C-alpha cells in the first residue's frame, strides 16, 4: 500500500473508532467552525478596509486621513 493510501486508512480508522468523547468534541468543533466562519465572519465581521476600498492605495489614503484628522 502506498503512503497516501496508508495515511488515508490511518485517518479513516481513527475517525471510525472515535471514543464517545471524541465524537462529542468533533461535533462541538464543527458547530463552532460553522458559527465562526459562516455566521460571524460573513454577517458580523467583514474586513472593513477590504470591503470598503478597492485597492491598497485607497486603504492607505483612508488610514492616513484618519490618523491626521484630529481636532
Amino acid at each position, binding site marked *: 500500500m502506498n503512503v497516501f493510501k496508508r495515511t488515508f486508512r*490511518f*485517518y479513516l*480508522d*481513527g475517525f471510525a473508532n472515535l*471514543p464517545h*468523547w*471524541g465524537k*462529542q*468534541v*468533533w461535533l*462541538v*468543533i464543527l458547530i*463552532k*467552525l460553522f*458559527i*465562526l466562519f459562516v455566521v*460571524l*465572519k460573513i454577517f*458580523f*465581521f*467583514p*474586513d*472593513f*478596509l*477590504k470591503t470598503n476600498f478597492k485597492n*491598497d492605495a485607497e*486603504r*492607505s*489614503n483612508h*488610514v*492616513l*486621513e*484618519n*490618523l*491626521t*484628522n*484630529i*481636532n
Partner: protein
Amino acid sequence: MLDGINVALVDWSRAQFALTAMYHWIFVPLTLGLGILVAIMETLYVKTGNPEWKRITRFWMTLFGINFAIGVATGIILEFEFGTNWSNYSWFVGDIFGAPLAIEGILAFFMESTFIAIMFFGWNKVSKSFHLTATWLTAIGANLSALWILVANAWMQKPVGMVFNPDTARMEMTSFWEVLFSPMAVHKFLHTTSSSFVLAAIFVIGISSWYILKGRDIVFARKSIVLGAVFGFIAIIYTIFTGDSSARDVAHYQPMKFAAFEGLYNGSEGAGLVALGLISQNTADPTNENLKDFTVKIEIPNILSYMAFLNWNAFVPGINDLIKGNEKYGVLAAADKIIRGKIAIEKLKAFKEAKKSGQIARADSLKTEIMSPEFQKNYFSYFGYGYIADVNTLIPSVAFAFYSFHIMVVLGMYFIFFFLMALFYTIKGKIHKKKTFLRIAIWTIPLAYLASQAGWVLTEVGRQPWVIQDLMPTMAAVTKISVGAVQVTFWLFAIIFTTLLIAELKIMMRQIKIGPKTEGGAK
C-alpha cells in the same frame, strides 16, 4: 481627539476584545502546559515500560484533547476583530503583526494537526518511539504557536525593528530578528509558557486529589501528583525568574505601567516595593483624581529600585514624574512628548496634502524627512502622544494594575508552597490522609486560572491608553463603526464562549468521572 471617535465606541471595542481574549486564554494555558506534561508521562512509559504510565498518559491525553478541541480556533475571532473593529491599527502595523501571525497559522495547522492525529489515532498502530515523537512535537508545536502570538504582542508593548512609511501609512519591518529577539518578546514568551506549565501542573494535582478523596485510582493519582508537583515546582521557580526579567522590561520601556502596578505616585531613589496594600477612595493628589491613596500598605524599602534596575538606590520614576517630568533624572514631561507627537502628526498631514495636491517633490522631501532616523527617534517615536488632549489620560487604572499584579504575585508565592506540600505529603505516603489539603488542591485549580488571567489584565490594562506603546493610542486604532454593532457582537461572543466553556466542562467532567482506563477500555 480624533474626529468621529467617541468614548463609548472605544470602550465597547475594548470590552469586546478583552472578553474574547480572556475566554481564549482559558483554553490556551492548559493546552501549552498539559501537552508538555503528557509528553513527559509518555516518555516515562517508553523508558520504564510500566503500563501504569501508559494508563496515566492516555487519561491526561484525553483531557488535553478535549481542552484542545474546544479551544481550537477561538483565537481566530481576535483576528476577525482586527479587521472589523481595529482596522486603523491592523493597517498601521502592517507586516510586523502579519508575519508572526502567518507563521503561527502555518505552524498550528501543519505541526499540531498532523502530529495530534498520530497522538490520538496512533496507539498500537505506530511504534512507541514514533508515537512519543508525535506527542512531543504536538506539545512543542503548541508552544511554538504561542511564541509568534507573544512576539506580536511584545512588539505592541515595545515596538522595535521597523520604520514608518508615510506612503503606505504602514510600519515596515527593517529587522525580523530584532522583532523576534527583543527582550520583551523573549521574556514574555518564557514567562507566559512557564506560567502555563504551572497551571497545568495544578490542574493535574487538583484532579488527582479528587480521585484520592473519592478513594479510587490511588496509584494513578499519586504518580500524577508527584509528577505534577515536581514539574510545577520547577515551572513556578522559572516563572518567578522570567517574571522578574519581564518586570525589568516594563520598568525600562513602559515606566507608567510599572509605576501604576506599584501605586508609585512620586518617584524616589531606593524606592520601596508595596508587598500588600489596599487602595482607598480618597485621592492622594488633589490635582489628579486618578491617584488614590492607600488605606493600608506593607512596603519593603529599596526592593522596587532593585527589581527595576538591579540597583538598591536607583531612581524609579513615579506617575507624577512621568506626567510633569523630572529634569534631574532626565524624565521628559508628558506635555513635551505631546508637542513632539503633534509635530510628527503635522508632518504626516503636510505629506498627505502635498501628495493629494500633486506636489510630488514636496511629498518626496517630506517622506524622506519622516523616514529619517533622526525624525523617527525624536518625533515619530512620540507619534501617539499627538492625540492626547489631557495628560491624565496617560495614566492607566492604578487599581486595576495594582491588584492584578499583586494577585498574580501572591498566588505565585502560594503555588511554591502548594507544590512543595503536595510533593512532601505524597513522598511521605500521607497524601490520602490529608483531606483538607486535597480539598485545597481542587480549589487551587481556579486560582491558577485567576493568576494567569491577572497577568494578562496587568499587561493589557496597564499599558492603556496605548494599543502600540507611544505610537498609537486605543482611540486612534478603532474603526468608525456604530457602537450598537459592537454591542451586538459583544453579547454574541459572550453567549458563544460561555456555551463552549460549559460544553468543555461537561465533557471533561464526564471523562474525569469515568477515570483512567486500562488497556482495552476496562476499568
